[in-house]
């Protein structure tokens, strides 16, 4: 009858809105210690989901849309928790739409389909509405027009803020659906991930990240 994660959820700190946060309320190490209370199955689901939906940059991040879709499809075969699946599908939809918005002026729709085929449920719909400013999806995803305007203005920070805000709201709703359940735990985890990513956006870190990427490219070639 008792919720399995009532103690775990109560032990997690309050996360301020990511834009207003000055520091992270919990370190990765401390968060991982708290997450030891997860059931083994749930812990595995979260680890799999982190690879697919983590915001923070990592060297293991897929380099192409095709790679992203392949990883997504492989990961989703093992994700069974319904709310987590729904969230990951939402993230995939979001990534696919953004990819489409970025590439629209560069590639044909056939090339786009080829890259993201098998990922989001909206791929064919987007391709069939390739010339529509919002792919005909603005009613479903009201953030698309704003995202498009940020992309046109080359405002990467504004775009990130928008997308992070959309995900943040989605995660807040997921957490409210079961305040002491696994939903609340993974919602906290991904919100914390967003907050970390937002806080990491400073010039020095961007420079070191850029240097890491340069090194990686050199090693690949």
């Amino acid at each position, binding site marked *: 009858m008792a919720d399995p994660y009532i103690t775990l959820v109560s032990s997690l700190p309050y996360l301020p809105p990511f834009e207003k946060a000055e520091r992270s309320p919990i370190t990765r190490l401390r968060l991982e210690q708290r997450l030891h209370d997860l059931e083994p199955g749930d812990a595995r689901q979260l680890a799999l989901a982190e690879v697919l939906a983590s915001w923070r940059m990592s060297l293991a991040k897929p380099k192409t849309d095709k790679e992203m879709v392949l990883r997504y499809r492989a990961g989703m075969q093992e994700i069974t928790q319904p709310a987590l699946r729904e969230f990951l599908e939402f993230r995939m939809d979001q990534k696919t739409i953004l990819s489409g918005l970025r590439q629209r002026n560069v590639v044909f729709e056939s090339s786009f389909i080829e890259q993201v085929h098998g990922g989001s449920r909206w791929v064919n719909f987007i391709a069939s509405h390739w010339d529509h400013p919002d792919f005909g999806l603005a009613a479903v995803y009201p953030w698309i027009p704003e995202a498009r305007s940020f992309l046109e203005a080359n405002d990467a920070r504004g775009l990130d803020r928008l997308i992070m805000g959309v995900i943040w709201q989605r995660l807040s709703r997921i957490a409210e659906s079961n*305040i002491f359940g696994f939903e609340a735990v993974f919602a906290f985890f991904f919100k914390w991930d967003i907050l970390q990513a937002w806080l990491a956006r400073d010039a020095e870190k961007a420079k070191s990240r850029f240097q890491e990427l340069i090194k990686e490219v050199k090693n690949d070639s």
Partner: protein
Amino acid sequence: MEPLILALGWIGLYAPLALGAVGSMIGCARAGSAACGALLEVESGYGRYIGVAAMPSSQTIYGIVVTMALRRDLTLENSPGIFGLGLLAGLAMLYGAIAQGNASAASINVSKSKLEVFGISLAPAALVEGFSVFAFVFALVLAAGIPK
């Protein structure tokens, strides 16, 4: 038929206490789990959270009092009344304690992050307590009408 009616009377006699205690166990366990989690996150005011976690224990006390009020020699005349009154009062205590445990856990969860809402966040748990008191008081009033 007579033994069955008398058995129902015994069930009704003990139901307020037993069901109230079951509800308190569940409610206190839930709220207590939340309190333990909160203790990891806060630096002071530990007693406040443990105190809130104990709120669902009141239903057991109400159950004891109702059981004592119903206590009498069981007969064919009074057993059906004791069964009905005792069972329904017990169910009210059971559900009241579980609901209060949920409300207390939610209160602990929010007030550990925002201490200034501690008092107001207890309002839902206090409301649940009020309904338990209604069930308790009217069980006592109606118990007086059951034949001795």
